[in-house]
């Protein structure tokens, strides 16, 4: 199973705040779903409203690898 890269998952999350709740993000699991497969990934989230931060490096990097691996199953 292809895994997402830990560094990519967090990215520069320390620099990001939720602009709605005006609060720093915290790392917690986020549920994902694709082609019928469910899994969870630890990402930076807003502890109040739950907005998630997916860094660009993650979307373009190992997240895409996971997508391809799931399609190829």
């Amino acid at each position, binding site marked *: 199973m292809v895994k997402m890269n830990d560094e990519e998952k967090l990215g520069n999350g320390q620099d990001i705040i939720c602009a709605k709740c005006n609060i720093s993000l915290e790392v917690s*699991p986020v549920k*994902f779903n694709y082609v019928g497969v469910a899994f*969870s990934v630890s990402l930076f989230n807003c502890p109040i409203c739950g907005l998630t931060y997916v860094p660009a490096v993650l979307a373009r990097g190992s997240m895409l690898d996971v997508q391809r691996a799931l399609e190829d199953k």
Partner: protein
Amino acid sequence: MELHQYQYLEAKCGQNDLPRCAAECPIHVDVRGMLQEAKRGNFSKAYALFAQTVPFPGIISQVCEQPCQQVCIRNDIDDGLAINAIERACYSYNEKKGSRAKLLLQKDNKVAVVGSGISGLTVAYHLANKGIKITVFEAGNNLGGRLLELTEGILNRRIMLNDLEVLNDLHVEIRLGVAINNSCSNSFNELLQEFDAVYLGLGQRDISALKLGLELNSNGTICVDPTTMETSNSKVFAGGSHLQDKNCLSVISSVADGKSAVISIDRFLQKASLTASRHAFGSKTTRLLTSVDSINPQPMVPISDPAKGYTEEEAKTEASRCIDCQCLECFKLCEYMRHFKMEPRALARQIFKNSSAIAHRFSLPMNSCSLCRQCEAVCQYDFSIADFCEAARETMVKAGRMPPSAFGFAIQDLKYSNSEAFVLTRLEPERSEIEYVFYPGCQLSGSAPWQVSKAYSYLREKISGGVGLMLGCCGVQASWAGETGIFQESLASFRSKWTELGKPGVIAGCPTCYMVFKKHLPELSVDLLSSIFDKFGLPEPAQSNSLVLAIHDSCTTRYEIEIQNSIRKILNNLGHTVKELTASRELTECCGFGGLMQISNRSLAHKVVDRRIEESEYDYLVYCSMCRDNFTNRGKTTYHLLDLIFGDEDGKIAARPPVGYSRRHDNRARLKNTFLKEVWGEDISYDPTPVKLIISEALRSVMENSLILDFDLYRVIEYAERTGNKLQNIVSGHYLAYFKPENVTYWVEYTAEGSGYVIHDAYSHRLEMTSPGESENDDNQTCRV
């Protein structure tokens, strides 16, 4: 695709057939393989290929009549290959000597071979090599039959005896001086009692005198089945020169008879069917076609010393004249096949296997073909990889196994083009009946909307019977994506709108729309806009220098000779000079739009275009806007026919700059607004991207490659600003927001500037966030990634 359909379509390709030489050789020696080794000086390997088929390589390499040479394709250029002489060289220069007898356990079966000519010896050798106990009966005092009549100069006796040594190694029992018949004795009947099967290789003689009790032909020969060599007695098989015309006796045909009898006797002993799925020996026709267009004449290498045969060097040079017959005409032209490095049949097999019900496995090859059917056009047997890819894509979609990322973008694009944003169906203003309707199509409307407006004005002016307007997408992208349902829906919706308009003749702006309507809506009459120019006269074109242009024909209209001619005629009338590309008209290539190659395999589509635009130094002329955009985007100066008639946005005749997905997307909606306002006086302006987005060139090209539109960015920002759902980078101050309108989640990093936005980054993903921030539950379906 059903298995039988697959087998039928796959068998159309002739590439796996034998080359002419091997097809003509009665025992189908792998001549081509042998010559390829010999030309590299690998005589031992070449010999092994020869000896794998031939029972007595020393004998055959001296005395074969080489019917192969007469049919060798080089006869069309100079001389057929000296195949037998090379076989002799392979025999001479082979370094891997040693007995050819396999060490097998002896079986209980006993077979008698009557007559020791080459056919009988062939039977003895091959059956003994299968572990069957063989006894050879020869009336004379030496083995060889008719071979013994050949002079020493033709057949070297030492080599012959050396070849026959193998029979000793195989423990073949030889009984010389024993005549077998039922006339002077009862020996034939006794043989039938004692042995499990009998082979008769009796040579040219009067059979009736032997009283064998077998059915005879009117000419006195034994009646045998030509494939199985079976006689009227199921235990008895016969072949060899006995069956041949005495004026054209052939050693190699006798060997072929022997080899046929070997298969039959072996099956007979195992009580298996003699005929089930068996390939007959003997010369046959071949479907392998080979082009000799680029082959230079080079006559046969003479043998300096005929007594010794070719020297190694001579044999190598002669063997190198073999052109290694292959067809692969489609492969030579198609960048896609070459990219996957698979011959057409192997590719078809893989695509079928992957998509078949057992596997349902998506594979890049099935989604990467441009379905352009150039392969079908060049193939003498109309074989096309497109048949397999189309079927595979449909199967995958039906099974729900097509990955959403494969063609998702194109389907969204199509849905958008067939939504209120673009669709328009109108009669001409102030008319209740129209003779024609103009259907510019989604891509031309996206690439050069002003040309569509000008074309519509021209049509209204020229055609007195009235011209309506229909905006929309013909649906071809769904058909290419294997989404048959969506394709049929768009056709049906087109048909009903067209019926509402009173079924006018359709003028298509795009060759692909033209082909889709022609093929799928046969009740409708359709012309390409260029043919209308031909019929009603060209609009007055803007001033232009005379250009020299190489024409790239559209792949969808590869068989439409009238369209191709009319394009060339228009160019001449406009005063331009036309150059032809090597692959043009029927054999033209695809620009990468076809089959959605550029969506499913972008890098390959670039490779295809890059190769095509290198073909000529001249600027290109096309008549499909996707060809124009794809070539221009890769740096080739390319004119659309309409660029030479209506010009660019300022009306000047010039090659226009590249146009990407975003522009095409938004231009469609804007074109609809323009038409409504300028032609019908209605003002319901809808702008997909109503705010100004400031995007750098570098980011724009990233967006183009990841299929992200300005429209997508606008929707993210609109959502974020409306709901306040956005993040912020406290170091840079940039906002970050995401939004998932359909299947894709889009992310934008932006800052507000005046009434617009500066875009710092844009990206997307297909993995769907289902519960942001929720804590992990113990659902065991859930796995950590």
